[in-house]
């Protein structure tokens, strides 16, 4: 894993006012985005969420994929792929559940380009995901 590269990408997020950090988990290294806005308020769902994203093996050659919320999050059933669990794991003292969300894998996002994409661009997909709540 390119810790230096990920730290550069996290610095870009910090410059934009977002909080994100590289964390260890029982599944391997992950990036944890804090307090991302959702559109849940109208439905009495959380208006912000922490989202965890695994660092893929061989990153950046391999594309970033999936997104997880805390396993008990009320948002999960309302998010694309949220009911299709791709595994649970522990990080930062909490259990997280990965949703079947694949923006770079024919999931609506652009093809993965390791020279352009990263955790600093993946946040755009996460924000879109959190804004697109279904019934």
């Amino acid at each position: 894993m390119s810790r230096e590269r990920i730290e550069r990408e996290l610095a870009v997020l910090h410059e934009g006012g977002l909080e994100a950090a590289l964390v260890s988990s029982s599944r391997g290294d992950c990036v944890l985005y804090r307090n991302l806005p959702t559109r849940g308020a109208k439905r009495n769902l959380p208006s912000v969420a922490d989202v965890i994203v695994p660092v893929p093996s061989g990153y950046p050659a391999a594309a970033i994929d999936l997104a997880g919320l805390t396993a008990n999050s009320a948002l999960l059933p309302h998010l694309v792929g949220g009911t299709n669990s791709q595994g649970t794991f522990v990080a930062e003292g909490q259990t997280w559940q990965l949703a079947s969300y694949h923006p770079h894998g024919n999931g609506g996002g652009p093809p993965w380009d390791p020279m352009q994409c990263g955790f600093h661009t993946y946040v755009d997909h996460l924000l879109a995901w959190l804004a697109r709540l279904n019934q």
Partner: protein
Amino acid sequence: MNSELKIRSDLDVLVRAASPEVDDLLDLAFRRYPDDESGSFAWFGWRETPGGIVLTLASIETPRSGDLDDTVPNICFLPPSIRRAVKAAQEGRLAAAVVHSHPAECHTGASIIDDDMDTYFADLFAGYTPDRPYVSLIFAHNASGQLSGTGRIFWRGEWHAVRRFAVERKSVYLEGYSSSVRLSAHAAERIARLRSAFGEESASRLAGATVAVIGASGTGSPAIEALARAGVGHLIIVDPDVFAASNLERVHGSWDADVGTAIPKAEIARRHIQAINPDCQVTAILGALPQPEVIDAVATANVVLGCTDQHYSRVALSDLAVRYLVPVIDCGVQLEGGGGNVTAQVVQLVRLLPADPCVYCQDMVSNQRVQQELMSPAERAQRMTAAEQAAERGEAGDAYWQELPQLNTVGYLTTTAGAMAAGYAIGWITGRFDPPFLRLQMDLGAPLFGVVDARKQPRAECACRRARGTADQGGVDAFIWPAAHWSPAVIL
């Protein structure tokens, strides 16, 4: 007067340089040749290896008007250029270097004037960037017209001599060291036909060369055989796999008795090389690029051949070429059929010089493939299950897992590709010919082999444009890192 510095020579210091930077640097160094000296500051990346250090030319601090004192015959940097170099050192992460020429008729060994300059600059840069080496290189043309050089680095409080140069398309005679390898009578006889075709100097260069072959199976094993027979002095063989019965049709040097023994393919290669050419030093590694032990070894090679059908491996080879300035030739084959006929028998050879467009610029990589190749077995199993469950729901399972067809291949095709790659490596090492293509594809079943050169231009924003020669210090621009679940590489 000759240098009076205490220079150690027990560290394997290798200096790598590639076009276009090395051409520009030598132009600057020889700007006042043959009568007077000239030179430039330059910046090097580096990698510390077991027992040595590899330094890679990354960029040049091209002198501006007034930077050098041209009123004196020796190289003399004036304060504005020194201030700029110090500032660049502080802002960057590379090692500072002074590269200069000596006039004609002078040898390239450092003089006491050079000692004064190098001591001054080593202390100066160490004051600002204490953890980095300081590099000093001197070039000239020797009596026989060869580009001749010497070098020394100041690192961790001691001076070390440069013991090898690996300069793209140039042979640098290293003064003070024996760069010309003498062949034994038996070794010379063994390559008599090659010597008569390519010349004695070529035989010497091959004997002094290191070639790394990544992949010791269908395409790698014939390449290894050709290189061993040509008298290459050191072969580094890297392969993560053990031999299987289905490999017997393609792997040169393998025997029926190897089936079921779980012998590593790299070990088969070593056995085969030593049977052909006992003088050849072999480093066999059970591992894969870009594992650190593998980079340590192959960063010292004159040429690397990519002989795997893994896309992640091509990404790693391209990164190696860009950041560590190692010339790479990647080869592969594809066999297609339909309607009871073989419809395509494609051989592909790709030249990956440090300045060439990388595998991403050349659209040679399937991201899906890379991702699946790099997954851990557990993740792979989970993805496959998810794809099956998606199919049961009537949904596409591609986002989870795509079944990638096993590439069909056959021994005569892989042998053709591997032998051709070895030939171009020999051409590079001997300086006799270059690969006249960027990405050659030929179809053995097509009229005139249907040869095309699928050239692509580099993308301006690609990391391959900015990371050249940055070595470990360009890690932020690395194309790939080893997967965390891989077993550590083992030197056999």
